[in-house]
C-alpha cells in the first residue's frame, strides 16, 4: 500500500519536482508511472525509498508515515522494499549469487533460507545456471534480470522499478514486464516508472501520468 497525500518536493536548486501530488496504490496492484523526462518519476520513487524527503504533504507506505522514520529505521524500511534500477547497480566484484544474496544477508535471513531464496529468485528470472558467473560476463538484459532477482529475493511487499526496460529490445522488455506482472499476481505491490508507452498501453494496468510534477491521469483510488 502506497499513499501520497498532497506531496510536494522542491529540490535545493529551487526546482519543483512534485506539486501537490496525491495518489493511492492498493496492495497487490501493478501501476505504471509515466511522463516526460523531468516530470518527476524518479523523484516519486526516491521519496518512497527515503532517498529524498518531501517538502510538504505525507507519504504513507504500508501504513507508516515516512516522516516518522529516521536513523536506523530508514535501513529497516528499505529492507521491506525491492528496487530495480535502469543501470542495474550490480556489484562486479562478486558473483551473481552473492549479488542476489546481499539484501538477504543484510536483513538477517537464516543461512539455509538464503540459499533457497536466491535460487528461487534466479530461477524465476531464468538465470539459475548463471549463479556462479560474474555479472560483468552477462548481457544487459541478463544483468537487468539479476537486478530484479535481487529486488524480489527477500519477497518484499513492495517492488519499485525505475526504467527497468530502458535499454532493452522490445522482446526482452515484454519478458521483463511479464515478470513484474507475475510478481503482482503473487501479492506484491509493483510500481514501475517507464517511458515505454507502447509496451504498457497493451498491458491493461493503471497508468499514472505525471506532467511537471503533477498527476494528470490515473490518480486516486480505483
Amino acid at each position: 500500500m502506497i499513499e501520497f497525500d498532497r506531496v510536494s518536493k522542491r529540490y535545493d536548486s529551487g526546482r519543483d519536482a512534485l506539486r501537490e501530488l496525491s495518489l493511492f496504490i492498493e496492495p497487490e496492484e501493478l501501476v505504471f508511472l509515466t511522463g516526460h523526462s523531468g516530470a518527476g518519476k524518479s523523484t516519486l520513487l526516491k521519496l518512497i525509498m527515503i532517498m529524498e524527503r518531501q517538502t510538504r504533504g505525507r507519504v504513507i507506505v504500508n501504513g507508516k508515515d515516512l516522516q516518522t522514520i529516521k536513523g536506523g529505521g530508514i535501513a529497516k524500511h528499505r529492507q521491506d522494499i525491492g528496487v530495480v534500477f535502469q543501470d542495474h547497480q550490480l556489484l562486479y566484484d562478486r558473483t551473481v549469487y552473492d549479488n542476489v544474496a546481499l539484501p538477504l544477508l543484510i536483513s538477517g535471513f537464516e543461512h539455509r533460507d538464503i540459499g533457497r531464496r536466491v535460487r528461487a529468485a534466479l530461477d524465476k528470472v531464468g538465470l539459475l545456471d548463471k549463479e556462479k558467473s560474474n555479472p560483468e560476463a552477462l548481457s544487459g538484459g541478463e544483468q537487468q534480470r539479476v537486478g530484479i532477482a535481487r529486488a524480489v529475493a527477500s519477497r518484499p511487499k513492495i517492488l519499485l522499478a525505475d526504467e527497468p526496460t530502458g535499454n532493452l529490445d522490445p522482446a526482452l522488455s515484454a519478458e521483463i514486464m511479464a515478470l513484474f506482472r507475475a510478481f503482482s499476481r503473487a501479492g506484491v505491490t509493483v510500481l514501475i516508472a517507464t517511458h515505454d508507452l507502447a509496451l504498457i498501453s497493451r498491458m491493461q494496468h493503471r497508468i499514472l501520468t505525471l506532467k511537471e510534477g503533477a498527476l494528470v491521469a490515473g490518480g486516486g483510488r480505483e
Partner: protein
Amino acid sequence: MVVSKAGRTAARSVTKVPFARRFVTWRLHHRLARHDTLSRLGRHWVSTLLTALVMGVVLSLPAALSMGVLTLEAALAQVDRGDSITVVAHDSLTLSQVEVLSEEYASLALVRSVSVVSKEQALDELSQWLGLSPEVLASLGNPLPHSISLTLTSMQTEALQALTEQLTHNPLVADVLLDMEWLSRLQAIALFGERLMWAFVAIALLACLLIIGNTIRLAVESRRQEILVTKLVGANNAYVMRPFLYTGFAYGAAGGLVALLITYSVKSWLGGPIEALANSYQTPYFALRFPLSLAFALLTAAIVLGMLGAWASARRQLKLIEPR
C-alpha cells in the same frame, strides 16, 4: 501515558525479531566484515604492508625513546642507591674521635648508614688505584685524613644542601665532598629524555591517526558505489562501517607488531655496547629495558589508534555517501 503512533510502531518493529535471531545476524555480519576485510587486505597486500610499515616506523620512535628513558632512569636509580657524601675529618682528629663523630652522624634523619674510612684504608685504596705498592706510598708519609662516608636515604637537592651546610659548620670537619652537579645534570637529562619521549608519543599518535584516516578515506572512496548499493538494499551505517573498523584494527595490529619488531631489533643491536658500558662501571643491573607490559601497551595503543582513525574517517566519509 501517551504513546505516539510512531513510537508504538517503532517498538513493535524492534521486538518483531527475537533477540537470539538478531544476535546471530549480528555475528554473521561481523564474520562477513572480517572476511571481507582480510580478503581485501590480502588482495592489496603491497599497500597493506606499506601502510603497516609506515605505522610501525612512526610508532617505533616513541617506543625506542621510552626504552632509552627507562634505561636512563634505571641507571639513575643505581646512582641514587650508591650515593653517599664524604665528610673529611680535621687532621688533628684521631681515629677514635672520628668514630664518635660517625656515631653522631648515624642518628641523623637523612643518613642511612655510616662507615669510617681510616687514613690507612684510604692510602690502601689510593695505592691500588695508582697501581703502586702501599709500602712505597707509605714511605712518603700518609697525607690523607680520616673520613666518614655517609649513605643517604634521599637525594633531594634541598635536603642535601641543608645537610652539607650543617656538616660544614662543625669545626672538626675539614671538608664535605659531594658531587651534586653531576647528579643534577643527570636528572636534568632524564627529565629532558622523558619530555622528549612524550613529545614523540604525541607526534606518533597524531601521525598514526592521519595515516589511518587517509588510508580509510581512500578505501571508502574507492568503494563508494558498493556502499550506495548496500545502503539501498537496506544496510544501516553500522553495517557499511564495519569492514572499515576491521581494516583499522588490522592496520593498527600490524603497525604495532612492526613497531615491536623494530624496537626489539634496536634493543638487541644496542644491547652489546650497553652491556660493555655497564661492565666498565661495574653496575650489573644496568641494561636496556623494554618490559613486556610496555610492549603490550604499544600494541593496544596501535590497535585503538587504528580503529579510532578508521571510525572517525569512515563516519565522516559515509555521511557524504547517501543514496540520492
